[in-house]
């Protein structure tokens, strides 16, 4: 039984991805595109050369972190839809430190990243406190906090940090994660050192959850609040902590954009989408650190590959959004996958 469960853990995401791609192909076929040509172009756009690889890895960094944020909260039984907002305040905080602080790179970069993490943690802890103190469901509050973050960060940029072009100034070079070296080995993609930060964060999440008392308590609360309470675990404290740590990951995801990809922050008309993609990444990765990294690789790859798919096969990039949505559906309805597996297994026996 244990063995079978383990197998299912890998099979559900795998089958979901295949079903998602399959239905995506059917949608293309129905709307008059060439699915085979499109998917070939898509995968060439991910693997066909070091430039594409560089772009995919660059895209992965914030996705890993936003995925970790969602997964971490999930482990404590909390659904953090507020990654998007925590990411925005983190982005702003990192850019603020990047512009207004003077320090050598060895201090400046960690300081800016920590500022992003702290801002995200602060933003994430608000729904945590509301949940712990007033029993308000975190899904609603985090959604509301997203919009508050979007409008507030825009207002702060507009009033205090505005540069021509609806954005802030560029950050100082000493805070930048940009890497001429990484760019030169990837045919001048926009790859930066952020991926290292993201991977370190993945290790930290794994260590926190599985190798510390805090992690044990957080997971216990996720499994059963009442039992944890009875065992002497402070449930309220753990809920706030979990949201704060989750928010910190999300805030650091924002610093990937601020210190790495863009080097500044724009006035955003709408959400970046990275935070919402984090939900997909965490679900696909079964809320484990390694799963999140793999999930981010897949979705980051799909997003970058979509550009090539559009230019070669003429299929709008949005198809990838549809495929990702379908994958989430199938993972969420793992019931179908279980049912299919049972059918196949039974068929094999008879």
């Amino acid at each position, binding site marked *: 039984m244990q063995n079978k469960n383990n197998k299912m853990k890998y099979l559900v995401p795998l089958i979901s991805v295949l079903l998602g791609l399959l239905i995506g192909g059917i*949608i293309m076929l129905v*709307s*008059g595109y060439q699915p085979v040509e499109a998917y070939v172009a898509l995968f060439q756009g991910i693997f066909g050369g070091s430039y594409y690889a560089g772009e995919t890895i660059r895209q992965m960094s914030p996705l890993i972190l936003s995925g970790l944020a969602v997964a971490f909260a999930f482990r404590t039984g909390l*659904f953090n*839809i507020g990654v998007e907002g925590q990411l925005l305040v983190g982005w702003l905080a990192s850019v603020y430190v990047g512009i207004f602080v003077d320090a050598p790179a060895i201090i400046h970069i960690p300081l800016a990243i920590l500022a992003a993490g702290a801002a995200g943690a602060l933003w994430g802890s608000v729904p945590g406190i*509301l949940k712990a*103190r*007033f029993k*308000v*469901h975190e*899904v*609603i*509050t985090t*959604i*509301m*906090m997203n*919009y*508050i973050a979007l*409008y*507030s960060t*825009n*207002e702060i940029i507009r009033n205090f940090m505005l540069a021509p072009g609806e954005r802030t100034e560029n950050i100082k070079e000493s805070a930048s994660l940009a890497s001429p070296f990484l760019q030169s080995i990837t045919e001048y993609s926009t790859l930066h050192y952020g991926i290292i930060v993201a991977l370190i964060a993945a290790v930290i999440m794994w260590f926190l959850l599985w190798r510390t008392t805090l992690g044990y308590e957080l997971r216990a609360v996720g499994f059963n609040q009442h039992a944890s309470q009875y065992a002497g675990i402070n449930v309220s404290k753990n809920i706030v902590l979990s949201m704060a740590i989750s928010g910190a990951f999300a805030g650091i995801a924002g610093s990937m954009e601020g210190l790495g990809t863009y080097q500044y922050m724009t006035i955003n*008309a*709408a*959400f970046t989408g990275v935070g*919402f993609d984090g*939900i*997909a990444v965490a*679900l696909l990765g079964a809320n484990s650190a390694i799963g999140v990294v793999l999930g981010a690789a897949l979705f980051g790859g799909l997003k970058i590959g979509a550009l090539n798919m559009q230019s070669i096969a003429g299929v*709008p990039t*949005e*198809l*990838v*959004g*549809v495929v*990702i*949505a*379908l994958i*989430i*559906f199938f*993972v*969420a*309805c793992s*019931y*179908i996958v279980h049912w299919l597996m049972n059918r196949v297994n039974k068929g094999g026996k008879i």
Partner: protein
Amino acid sequence: MSFMDILALIVPAAIVSAAPLIFTALGGVFSERSGVVNIGLEGLMLFGAFIGAVTIYYGEQLGLGGASPWVSFVVAMIVGALFASIHAVASISLKADQVVSGVAINFLAAGLAIFLTKKIFNAGQTPVISERISKSDIPFLSDIPVIGKLFFSNAYLTSYLAVFVALIVWYVLYKTPFGLRLRSVGEHPMAADTMGINVTKTRYIGVLLSGALAGLGGAVYVASISGNFTHSTITGQGFMALAAMIFGKWHPLGALGAALFFGLAQAISISGTQIPGLQDIPKVFLLIAPYVLTILALAGLVGRADAPKALGTPYEKGKR
């Protein structure tokens, strides 16, 4: 600027921006009162807006003229219900996490709507429609002093329809056997099941109705406010409708009031610069007001908001 001029500027604008929110929030009431969380309102509204824009455009081409927006409302409701059926199947029959399924609905609607827009029109947006819902004065009522000028002149028919539908939803939920069943399924599905109410069927109806009303909300937004569909037509109105539903304590008339209030905040944030006294208030406070208020309401600081008891939990027969 006199006080009346200010009101005459703000109130009609508030009512206009509130109408799509009212429809969508009412949809949310149906779904959540039956016990199914519907984060997917945003996506359902977005798809309704897309369908609305496409139907009105082709309605004009086919010579339907002024009737095309109304035809589009019906089509958007049907398609919205169909789209919501995905959420219904996932969260009711397949017992998927309702929040996750709602998130997937949002992704799917956004991806599919833009994908189809690009496929059909070869552009990132639908053509701008010429047959909008037109503003008109309501005969007789607009002649009433004070009130007539504020509420019954220069307004869209859809706004009155929204208020009317809210009254109907209230009647259905609180005065009919179906409404009682729907609410009981959301509060205590097992007790309802024992009394012979089909929990699955009732929840399906709740979710499909939410899809229809959210689709209608999206189509009304296109027909009265935006005039076409782009990737930025629906950005958060669905979530604001969700907030209105919660701020209105899952009650149709409460949702109506909250949506009107949020509409007022939006109207002030747009035309506030022309109003003495409000000019000095930073716009951002008005923009975030609906969300802050919703959080405060949930925290019990602005009147306690309690969700239906069985909200978010799939019903399994025989489970204790």
